[in-house]
């Protein structure tokens, strides 16, 4: 079963497991396409130079080879790379995008061929305006080629676990004595709040002092609202230190390992 949030494709497997795929927006896809067009032009310039410089064949045959190569490269670039690299071209790799089956199934060659062959209709009347308009009104962010082929383009997520040791060096943590409160925080605080807090602490030197204090105070209040630690454990802590200690106890078990 498949459900769609804004910009996210959620798939529920027959086993009852749910996973989500973040969908790529038009700007990122457009940048990937520009990179791919650049790659195609580099390939074609190289082939043209090679055909001319080798001078092994007559001008007639050389012209024919160039024309056929141009057609094959322009049409087959996306097909060949998405086939070999499981849904990625050079542009999509750089922009961390990947073509996926819209049902979460394995991307198959017919889908890759069809979505690439239907580019002419998406590019109408110019600059992919029709495809862009269809993507804009489509909740799965599909252009016409994607609709026909049953594919979506997703953003590849980073898979590394955050290293909490960078923001909370291994020293005394007054909150560590309350594992039940840490467990409650783990349960209640939304994942994006934890991620934002982690980033905010990593980038502390990039903020103006006043803005930093206000931001940390706001974030700390969100954690305090979910689980209030005893005053004895928090009374001498600044908001920043409180946030470092909170993230540390959330990840404490693994840090101790």
């Amino acid at each position, binding site marked *: 079963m498949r459900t769609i949030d804004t910009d996210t494709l959620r*798939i529920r*497997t*027959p*086993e*009852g*497991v*749910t*996973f*989500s*795929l973040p969908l790529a927006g038009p700007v990122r896809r457009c940048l990937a396409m520009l990179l791919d067009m650049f790659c195609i032009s580099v390939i074609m310039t190289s082939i043209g130079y090679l055909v001319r410089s080798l001078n092994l064949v*007559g001008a*007639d045959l050389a*012209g*024919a*080879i160039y*024309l*056929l190569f*141009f*057609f094959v490269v322009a049409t087959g670039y996306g097909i060949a790379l998405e*086939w070999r690299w*499981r849904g990625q071209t050079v542009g999509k790799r750089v922009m961390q995008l990947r073509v996926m*089956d819209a*049902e*979460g*199934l*394995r991307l*198959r060659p*017919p*889908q890759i061929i*069809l979505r690439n*062959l*239907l*580019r*002419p*209709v998406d590019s109408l009347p110019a600059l992919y305006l029709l495809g862009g308009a269809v993507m804009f009104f489509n909740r799965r962010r599909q252009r*016409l*080629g994607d*609709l*026909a*082929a*049953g594919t979506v383009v997703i953003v590849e*997520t*980073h*898979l*590394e*676990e*955050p290293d909490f040791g960078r923001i909370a060096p291994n020293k005394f943590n007054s909150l560590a004595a309350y594992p039940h409160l840490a*467990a409650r*925080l*783990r*349960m*209640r*605080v*939304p*994942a994006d709040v*934890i*991620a934002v807090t982690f980033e905010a602490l990593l980038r502390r030197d990039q903020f103006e002092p006043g803005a930093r204090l206000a931001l940390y105070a706001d974030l700390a209040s969100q954690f305090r609202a979910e689980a209030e630690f005893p005053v004895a454990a928090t009374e001498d802590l600044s908001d920043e230190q409180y946030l470092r200690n909170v993230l540390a106890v959330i990840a404490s*078990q*693994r840090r101790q*390992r």
Partner: protein
Amino acid sequence: MIVDLDRFVSRERPFWQELEQLLGRIDADPERTLALDEALRLHYLYQRGGAGLAKLNSLPGETALRAYVESLVARAYGQIHETRGGSWGASAWRWFTITFPQAFRRRGREFALSAGLFFLGAAFGAFALRVDPTAKVSLVGFGHLKQTPAERVANEEQSQKAGDEMAGRKTRFSAELMTHNTRVAIFTCAMGMTWGFGTAISLFYNGVVLGAVGYDYVQAGFTRFLLGWLLPHGSVEIPAILFGGQAGFVLAGALLRRRDRRRLGERLRQVTPDVLHLLGGVAILLVWAGIVEAFFSQYHEPVLPYDLKIAVGLLELVCLFLFLSRAGRNAHD
């Protein structure tokens, strides 16, 4: 649900890593078929990863770990639950002689629509030129077709006497024709995604041009020249463009078939193989048409008798008809 995360992760991590390695091997060679023990292991690791993901979903703080396991489960899900047939390993010869003609016959109604619109356009083009001969410039956009038929025939036959004016550029011309016509066929098919309107317009327009040119030469008394010039390559090229339109109408049919209770995605998924089989056939036919047009069609009397060219064109047309109507009839694909 609160789990002992440390114990859970240390217990499951080796299985996640094994699943990641197995998926990496599958990704490196997507067409490889898994051995039975590998497939069973993949299924076990997928189920174990799915169970782990269900536990991690109850821990809102574990964003990165959940994303990692989620990506593994998503990749394994695609492999485990893929049920569509894998006929793409079939040999090219078998595909061309069986699969392509079968796909053509399966989509006979779409071909009839495609041919109907094209010939309706041709009739309109001929009629328009009959009613208003000055419309020729608007209807026929190509340079040498704007000449009167008498001028064109005189020029062609004169240049044949002077020598081979195509010498030194036949191969390039052939490549130009192949790539241009294939682009036109792909475009005509792609326009099927405009609910078939674009495909219909493209077919009608191409028909108008052909009808106007045909009428122009016939009424001027140059029917033999016209047939000798067009039939050798047109007997393959025009059907190929019609197959492009047929593929476009197959797509449009999947978009428009509202009575079909399946979802749009399923309907499109079902017609995708036929669309690609038709386009594959189109590409091959247009390669042949390009060679014939550059190396044969451009030669006229006195170098090549028109009757010979007409006979070759008719022979190609009959062969194509027999091929499409009979090839692969008794084969199961």
